[in-house]
């Protein structure tokens, strides 16, 4: 699967309150949540500016704070094709694989990419191509178990296969 889009850069410790503020948690409707994606971040008008396929590129500890699955749901439904970060907070990491938001850890990519760069990501190999800067980076390999989850189609599908 090839993911392609413009890079939107964010700093370190982007927390779940920034990704989807609690005032919107009175719904679990993905479409409603997506409208407010990144609303309390440094780019509050993210949803006005981004295009389907665009990629969030962030520093360390992306998705820290709450366990709210609403965060990766909002990002995925907003049309963000994937998130590249130096590191991910552990509950967000787990949630993303559970519900099928592709995420990649790549410090080199984060250090080099500028907002606006056009990126192409090969989800299987984790190779990130910076089309604008004509460079490539290699993300940390996705652990085999997480690949199994993705291959099954997410955690619930994996569970169904197991209990079948």
């Amino acid at each position, binding site marked *: 699967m090839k993911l392609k889009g413009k890079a939107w850069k964010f700093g370190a410790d982007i927390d779940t*309150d920034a990704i989807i503020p609690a005032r919107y948690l009175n719904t679990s409707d993905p479409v409603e949540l997506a409208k407010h994606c990144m609303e309390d971040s440094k780019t509050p008008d993210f949803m006005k500016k981004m295009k389907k396929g665009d990629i969030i590129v962030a520093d360390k500890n992306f998705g820290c704070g709450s366990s709210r699955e609403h965060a990766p749901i909002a990002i995925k439904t907003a049309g963000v094709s994937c998130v590249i970060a130096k*590191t991910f907070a552990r509950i967000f990491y787990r949630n993303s694989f559970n519900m099928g938001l592709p995420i990649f850890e790549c410090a080199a990519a984060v250090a080099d990419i500028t907002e606006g760069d056009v990126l192409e990501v090969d989800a299987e190999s984790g190779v990130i191509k910076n089309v604008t800067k004509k460079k490539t980076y290699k993300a940390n390999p996705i652990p085999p178990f997480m690949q199994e989850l993705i291959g099954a189609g997410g955690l619930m599908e994996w*569970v169904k296969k197991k209990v079948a």
Partner: protein
Amino acid sequence: MNDGPTRRYGPYENTEKHIMPMTITEKILAAHCGKKEVTPGELINAKVDIVLANDITAPISIKEFRKAGAKKVFDKKRIVLVPDHFTPNKDINSAEQSKLLREFAREHKLTNYFEVGRMGIEHALLPEQGIVVSGDVVIGADSHTCTYGALGAFATGVGSTDVAAAMITGEIWFKVPESMKFIYKGRLKKWVSGKDLILYTIGDIGVDGALYRAMEFTGEVIDKMNMSGRLTMANMAIEAGGKNGIIAPDDTTKAYEDGRAQRKAKFYKSDKGASYVDVREYDCSKIEPQVACPHLPENTKGVSELAHVKIDQSVVGSCTNGRIEDLRIAAKVLKGHKVHPDVRMIIIPATQAIYKQAMKEGLFDIFVDAQAAVSTPTCGPCLGGHMGILAKGEKSIATTNRNFVGRMGHPESEVYLSNPAIAAASAVLGRIGSPDELK
């Protein structure tokens, strides 16, 4: 090596000699996946004792449960649903979410569904009711599920989908975390409590200093600490990125669980020679009350450095510091004083039992006489839900656990985290300060 007074309570489970000594976290996980030993990095499938969710996270779990075609839950006694975030419901959408929980609980005859008027803030309620016990594996669709580590359980926050899967299978996969050991030595200064120690620790290692790791809290100060302080410390392990926080059970744990625990508790402790990826020691005698400044829990300063910060609101409550011990401290500070005319103070007992106890002890008289507002149990303002939202430019001091941008309301409001004594003193002073500054 002696970490403190010899624990007189036993027996402890799984103390036979192993090829490899294990930490308490490793032992609990090994016991729940039927293995003699586990090592950090290993992937396991663990049986879960308790599965928890609340009014904002359970709706997604329930949807996933139904979408998977599941017909019944793995054990109707072990799934706990607590509507605590936006309750008593603050708007129609929140009411619809709570309704989903209610209907699911009825459909599956869940023993542990807590309606408004019976509920409390989940992480205060579950230990109080003895629903979680030492030696448990507990997962919750709420990041502060790590609170129960104070009882010597493995407890961690997960997402709604993980909870949905566990509701069906009674199991969850884990990667065994490495453990970090924190040793707290010396004596606590006046007004310094578990909240200050955990804030100090997060300030030391950073909001991802314990990423994916178990935080094991030990030392003479922990040995002497009451359960309320221990619950506060374990509660904020997630704010350092920790997978779980944990305190080995001892006489204090036994005394807390006697007459309360709904199931048999199992006591584990770390072996001498167990491996830790990091060991740190703190001399608590040097620590003054801590305040985490906007907008990260790691942005800590001593309270004495913040006298210039005026506040608009003070909140005492939350799963972190909403217990009777916390309310007593707030009352002790407030007694005979009035909340500053420019400040709103909101006090939220964390459960109905605590509410009643506080009323009985005359604490509500002190609070109301001081011109503070007293609320029914709810998470309320902690996550910017209701019961004390901040306007643009406003500042609140709070005994809560997070202060990210917009946490308690407007993105241009600010939250300072502290212990109850500091929150109460600051309410009177109209600025951040200590009880020793009150006349």
